[in-house]
């Protein structure tokens, strides 16, 4: 799994940088959407064929929401604190972290507030998603399955869901969707809120 991810992303980046294939770049968004849909059907198939994955939810009840809330809190607090190291205020760094890996929206929301912060947001949220893809199998193997959901932030719900599912088990899908959905709702609410503080 790790080797496949590294090979694909390295080959893609190198080809994108050196050859700039016009077709792939132009239709990137659409191609990604189509592929995610194909991936979703394949995951759904495994999901539907297997044993009931919602058994945990019935046993745990409301406690399942602890995981997504903790993931969001951890991002905001530690992300905010890291700003102090690079000389950005806690508030600004927290606003950047409130992107949870959704670089397009967070960067746009910050662009009126500060151009520089918007660029930092784009980069940092992209780093989170890209490095996340590589780290998911590592975290799943050496730390834990729930932690692997936390790694990529929002894209745990779409782009990274198949990677998480392949590196863990079907039980985890529900946590991935819950935490992805929560963060998805939080980005457009928290980002403007934090910069107005």
């Amino acid at each position, binding site marked *: 799994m790790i080797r496949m991810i590294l090979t*694909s992303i390295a080959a893609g*980046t190198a080809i994108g940088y050196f050859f700039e294939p016009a077709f792939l770049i132009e239709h990137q968004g659409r191609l990604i959407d189509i592929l995610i849909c*194909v991936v979703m059907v394949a995951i*759904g198939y*495994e999901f539907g064929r297997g044993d009931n994955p919602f058994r945990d939810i019935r046993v745990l009840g409301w406690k399942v929401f602890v995981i997504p809330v*903790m993931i969001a809190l951890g991002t905001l607090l530690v992300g905010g604190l890291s700003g102090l190291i*690079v000389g950005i205020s806690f508030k600004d760094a927290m606003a950047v972290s409130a992107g949870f890996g959704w670089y397009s929206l967070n960067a746009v929301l910050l662009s009126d507030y500060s151009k520089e912060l918007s660029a930092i947001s784009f980069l940092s949220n992209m780093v989170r998603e890209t490095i996340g893809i590589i780290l998911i199998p590592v975290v799943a193997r050496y730390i834990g399955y729930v932690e692997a959901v936390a790694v990529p932030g929002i894209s745990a719900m779409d*782009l990274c869901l198949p990677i998480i599912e392949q590196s863990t088990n079907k039980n985890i899908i529900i946590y991935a969707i819950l935490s992805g959905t929560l963060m998805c709702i939080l980005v457009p609410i928290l980002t403007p809120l934090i910069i107005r503080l």
Partner: protein
Amino acid sequence: MLFKILLYWAFMALGIYIGFKRKLLSSRQDAREVFFFKWLLTISLALLIFILGVGIGSNQEVIQNLRHIGFSGVLIGMSGLVGSVAFAYAGRKLIGLNRYCQIEEKGAKISHD
């Protein structure tokens, strides 16, 4: 964005429906069918990540900004990542899940596929 999420979920629901129906219909294990869907998942996933890489590599803005604001961007991004992993660990301990996402008290059988 909302439309896309709903679209993804619709496709996942379709897959769940197919998988569930096939499980009910067939008493024997359809090894080839299961293998086909696993193969489909791996291939489309590799393509997905490849295309994502093409987008990053060909994005001049990102490549150029890398030198300029690279350090703060990478540090904030990685801190958020590490922070959420640490908090997820705490949350998992709090509600009593083991590292394979199984409920600990009842975790007599340990299986991880």
